[in-house]
């Protein structure tokens, strides 16, 4: 082993070591700068800076326009005036100066006196306390001394105050004197400010938005922790929360950090692009005066997305199309947020956001898509198979007709053909296609389906009651047609083979009942006669009302309806099915509970009919027919579909996209595709899955927008994320509205009436607007609840508009339903449902009322007796009879209505006689009109109640008094039978 080497002093070469050190330090410096930069340069800052500049330019333009607008001559004139005024004041300079001196002097004096007074006051308070102390000692001398001290001090204080007040008064006088002298000048200056103030304000705002040194310093790194212009703008939303794993966290919305202009008005022109646009409909959303102010509701509560995000991609923006996606990727670095369960709803579905608070009861023209979707869900009967635990979809009757007595109505062969393809028979039907869908093709499957359909028919006929009806009396098809078009059938029914549901979008009122084309090939005429005479006799649960038809009318209608026939649906026979295929299906079902051996034995013990009926029962269970129809034996069976109450919160990975790869993996795309092609997810699995395992959702023949309307609802069926107190529908009024609307949709009131500006579908078959059923806007303000209660129970009792052909049907409402309607109308107008009886006015008012009634020629339109139609009066010219007013109308409404009808019902024929003035009061034209020779008689009659003509005219010029008098005349002066 070699001897140890001499220990060297150093190990490393320090030149290279220093180089290492230098380079690594430089790297550290650079990386630190990079880190700070990374932390500083957030995209939202760019948006804010850009918007600031855009706004500055906009304001600069406005300022420029304002400068142009200002009349320079006017300014020059005022400035000249100011100069002359100043010159005039200069002449009185010595006077003014003296006044100013006095003012200054008095200021001092006031100040001194004030200090004196306050000093004395504080001493006084001290003496008072000393007095309290003396009281506690109980020493009479001390008490007396203290009391004396208080009194003395109080006297001094009094003097101080007097002095102060005197000086203050003097000062005010001097000031007034000065002001008086300067008045001309001040006025001119005020004018100048009025002229130029707007411009100056604008210019100062422009200057504020400039990017000067201060701007850069305030927003420089590190400095920006103090008071930057560019900052995250956030709002905490109490009670509107993120629902995470059984805990809830208030939302903290930061959207306006980038959407800088969202809450501000005035950025809605084309040129403003997102994120610099105002939110649409600021009257409804976001603005502080709207019902949904930003500070209380934020953005993500309705729109979804990650509330706290400050980055485009992470916020969860959802592109509406592939092009938009590509553009966003390129422009904003968009990427799919795998870990965000609630991405922002695409714009076309954003109404789904309403449901969180409104539980699907928005019902205003501004939420059309969602309303349409809700109506579709109700009409298509989605809730029959899918539980949807929202008030709008619970406690609803089954959406389809009862099958408990169907054997009395039609024949099995027709039923077979109907089930096979309902839309072949009724192009607009809501009944979906269950069979011959894309996932059950092939010969064997078709044979299986034929067996299934036949067995369903067999089961239904097996269980159905059969009543035979006598043939109806002879009727005239022509008369029937007229009746059909005018009596009210067309509010709910179409009779049109060419009809296409989508053409009616979004108004489906005329599809409330079945399309009545081909009725002759479907039903038994005896049944039809009995049915339209009294629908409830056949099915007590039906929503079809009675129109109180006479036998002859009913017979005419039957004749008309039976005249629509289609040979393709007549004289049909049930097709034969392959018994083996049927038996194989029966065996499969039997084997669900039995061993293979047992099932064979059971099958052997059943005859042909029993096998059909058994298979029918199983098939009805499989397809859930009882979700929409009353089927005997299925009264209490649970619905077969997936519950949809929280479908909008279902994690995306729980949606089965099967082998379909061109549908984007989003909730909305899955649901929409499912609506349009319900069996698509079986694609490629048809042969691998067992026949019974295949998807069963039927095809409703939806159009694109129908599907989207439904999606706009289903997306909103989310887990609760709003505390109860923050939800809408919490007040009794809101609940009354919601219940009323549900009932209105259920009974299709809007088929005939215009309610909340929607409806009157019937007008397509009634051309004369005067013959349309009434617009029910303001109904709650107009009619008495007692009257409406009676009327809804039996609309036949009386008629306001005897000339109408269309009849208000008898629905056979329960009291509860009627009360729902009453509460709805009352809540709509924000009024109590009931009023007390008004007192009788004096004779003078009645006389004036009568006179004015004549002068305004009210009776020209409001018939006060039976209408003589021979005089060429068409219904369109007529208005409701006023004879019913006292029983029907609300007393407090009549004069309001006369004064301003348009404010209650847009488009009403009732003219405005009393124009509204700018101050909100109304003017009356009657004081002038009374002098016309033709009204001399009325004038004389009225004058008897007045001391002078002037007094009468004063009365007549007062719109309030006159309308009240008219009301009183209508209330007390018009009598039935007069």
């Amino acid at each position, binding site marked *: 082993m070699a001897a140890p080497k001499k220990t060297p002093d150093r190990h490393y070469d320090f030149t290279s070591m220093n180089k290492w050190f230098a380079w690594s330090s430089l790297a550290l410096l650079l990386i630190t700068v990079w880190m700070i930069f990374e932390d500083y340069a957030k995209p939202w800052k760019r948006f804010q800076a850009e918007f600031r500049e855009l706004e500055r330019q906009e304001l600069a333009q406005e300022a420029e326009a304002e400068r142009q607008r200002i009349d320079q001559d006017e300014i020059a004139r005022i400035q000249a005036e100011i100069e002359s005024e100043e010159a005039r004041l200069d002449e009185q300079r010595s006077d003014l100066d003296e006044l100013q001196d006095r003012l200054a002097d008095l200021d001092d004096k006031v100040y001194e006196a004030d200090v004196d007074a306050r000093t004395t006051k504080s001493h006084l308070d001290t003496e008072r306390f000393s007095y309290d102390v003396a009281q506690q000692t109980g020493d009479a001398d001390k008490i007396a001394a203290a009391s004396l001290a208080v009194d003395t001090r109080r006297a001094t204080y009094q003097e101080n105050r007097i002095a102060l007040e005197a000086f203050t008064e003097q000062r005010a006088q001097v000031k007034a004197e000065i002001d008086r002298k300067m008045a001309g000048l001040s006025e001119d200056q005020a004018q100048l400010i009025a002229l130029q103030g707007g411009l100056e304000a604008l210019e100062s705002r422009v200057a504020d938005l400039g990017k000067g040194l201060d701007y*850069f310093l305030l927003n420089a790194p590190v400095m920006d922790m103090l008071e930057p212009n560019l900052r995250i703008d956030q709002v905490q939303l109490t009670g509107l929360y993120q629902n995470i794993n059984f805990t809830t966290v208030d939302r903290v919305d930061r959207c306006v950090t980038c959407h800088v202009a969202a809450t501000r008005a005035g950025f809605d022109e084309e040129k403003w692009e997102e994120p610099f646009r105002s939110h649409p409909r600021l009257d409804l959303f976001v603005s502080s005066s709207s019902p949904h102010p930003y500070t209380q509701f934020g953005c993500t509560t309705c729109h979804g997305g990650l509330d706290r995000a400050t980055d485009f991609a992470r916020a969860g923006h959802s592109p509406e199309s592939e092009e938009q996606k590509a553009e966003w990727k390129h422009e904003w670095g968009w990427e799919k947020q795998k870990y965000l369960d609630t991405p922002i709803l695409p714009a076309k579905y954003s109404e789904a956001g309403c449901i969180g608070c409104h539980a699907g009861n928005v019902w205003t023209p501004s939420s059309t898509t969602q309303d349409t979707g809700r109506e579709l869900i109700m009409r298509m009967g989605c809730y029959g198979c899918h539980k949807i635990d929202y008030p709008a979809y619970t406690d609803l009757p089954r959406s389809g007709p009862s099958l408990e007595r169907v054997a009395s109505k039609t024949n099995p062969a027709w039923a077979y053909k109907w089930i096979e393809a309902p839309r072949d028979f009724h192009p607009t039907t809501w009944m979906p296609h269950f069979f011959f869908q894309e996932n059950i093709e092939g010969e064997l499957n078709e044979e299986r389906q034929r067996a299934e359909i036949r067995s369903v028919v067999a089961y239904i006929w097996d269980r159905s009651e059969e009543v035979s009806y006598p043939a109806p009396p002879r009727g005239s098809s022509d008369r029937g047609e007229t009746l059909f078009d005018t009596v009210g059938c067309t509010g709910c029914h179409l009779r049109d083979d060419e009809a296409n549901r989508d053409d009616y979008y979004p108004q489906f009122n005329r599809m409330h009942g079945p399309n009545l084309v081909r009725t002759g090939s479907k039903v038994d005429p005896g049944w039809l006669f009995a049915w339209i005479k009294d629908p409830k006799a056949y099915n007590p649960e039906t929503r079809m009302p009675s129109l109180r038809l006479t036998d002859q009318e009913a017979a005419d209608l039957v004749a008309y309806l039976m005249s629509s026939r289609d040979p393709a649906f007549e004289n049909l026979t049930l097709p034969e099915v392959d018994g083996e295929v049927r038996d194989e299906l029966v065996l499969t079902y039997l084997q669900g509970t039995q061993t293979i051996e047992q099932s064979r034995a059971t099958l052997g013990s059943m005859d042909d009919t029993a096998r059909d009926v058994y298979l029918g029962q199983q098939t009805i269970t499989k397809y859930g027919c009882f979700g929409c129809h009353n089927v005997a034996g299925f009264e209490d069976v649970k619905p077969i579909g997936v519950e949809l109450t929280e479908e909008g919160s279902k994690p995306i990975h729980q949606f089965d996209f099967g082998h379909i790869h061109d549908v984007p993996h989003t909730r909305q795309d899955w649901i929409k595709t499912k609506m349009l092609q319900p069996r698509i997810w079986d694609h490629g699995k048809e042969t691998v899955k067992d026949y019974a395992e295949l998807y069963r959702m039927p095809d409703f023949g939806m159009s694109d927008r129908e599907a989207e309307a439904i999606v706009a609802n289903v997306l909103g069926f989310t887990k609760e994320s709003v505390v109860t107190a923050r939800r809408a529908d919490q007040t009794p009024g809101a609940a009354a509205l919601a219940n009323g609307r549900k009932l209105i949709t259920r009974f299709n009131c809007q088929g005939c009436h215009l309610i909340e500006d929607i409806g009157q579908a019937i007008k397509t078959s009634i051309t004369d607007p005067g013959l349309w059923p009434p617009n029910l806007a303001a109904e709650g303000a107009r009619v008495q609840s007692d009257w409406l209660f009676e009327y809804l129970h039996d609309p036949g009792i009386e008629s306001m508009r005897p000339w109408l052909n269309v009849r208000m049907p008898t629905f056979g409402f329960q009291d509860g339903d009627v009360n729902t309607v009453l509460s709805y109308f009352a809540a709509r107008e924000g009024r109590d449902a009931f009023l007390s009886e008004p007192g009788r006015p004096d004779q003078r008012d009645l006389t004036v009322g009568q006179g004015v009634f004549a002068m305004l020629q009210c009776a020209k339109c409001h018939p006060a007796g039976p209408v003589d139609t021979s005089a060429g009066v068409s219904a369109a010219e007529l208005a409701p009879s006023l004879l019913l007013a006292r029983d029907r109308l609300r007393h407090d409404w009549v004069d309001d209505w006369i004064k301003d009808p348009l404010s209650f019902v847009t488009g009403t024929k009732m003219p405005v006689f009393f124009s509204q003035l700018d101050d909100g009061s109304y003017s009356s034209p009657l004081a002038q009109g009374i002098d016309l020779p033709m009204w001399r008689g009325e004038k004389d009659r009225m004058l008897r109640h007045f001391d002078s003509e002037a007094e009468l005219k004063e009365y007549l010029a007062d719109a309030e008094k006159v309308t009240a008098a008219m009301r009183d005349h209508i209330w007390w002066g018009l009598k039935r039978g007069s």
Partner: protein
Amino acid sequence: MNKYRFLTFCLLAVSLLGIACGGGGDEAAAPTAAAAPAAATGSGAITGVINYANGDPDTAIGMDADPVCVGLHAEGAVTEQVVGDEGRLGNVFVYIKSGLSGSFPASADKVVLDQQGCMYNPHVSGVQVGQPVVIRNSDPTLHNVHALPTANAEFNKGQPFQNMEFEHKFDTAEVMVRFKCDVHPWMNSYMGVVSHPFFAVSGTDGSYSIENVPAGTYTVEAWHETLGTQTMEVTVADDAAAAASFDFASAG
């Protein structure tokens, strides 16, 4: 993403530079175009004739519902839809639909719409946005003026007394605004509300003339109550009248 970083970085760099150079002052607000000036009217004109082939005549009106009206028309009244001499069509509203630029201050002249003999007079008329319309009742019976616009606000005023009148201004251009009387359903009138003064209504001889048109190329539209609309490209030169005649035919 990198784009923003880069931009913000530049912003930062520029700001530092600005500070280093003693701070850049505010840029003066860029001078911008003032609000569109009132455009001048010109010296051209558009004239033409409205022809009407195989037309159906006007039909008689039954005024039985109101005896007052019957009294006012001893010889009976007819609808005024297709007034015009043989082969000509009156009551056609002709106006420049597009091609104009600039704005035109509203005339202060009042347009009168009279209710006379239970008819509107004139049956077809035109008015500029903001120009006052005076609506008068010259009959000794109740009329109500129910305007049924779509773009403007609806109004419905009762005029129970003879010689009552009121004034109204329209805010928005709209061709046409229909007027009706709810008491006398035969009463109809149409008023074209346009944003400029270049419109006319054809007379019974079918002729019309739009004056003071600035030179330019315009789309001119002719509107008729029952026969619909027709449009035509017209080029107007200074001090000359461009011709634009329309041919209407009854649908039957």
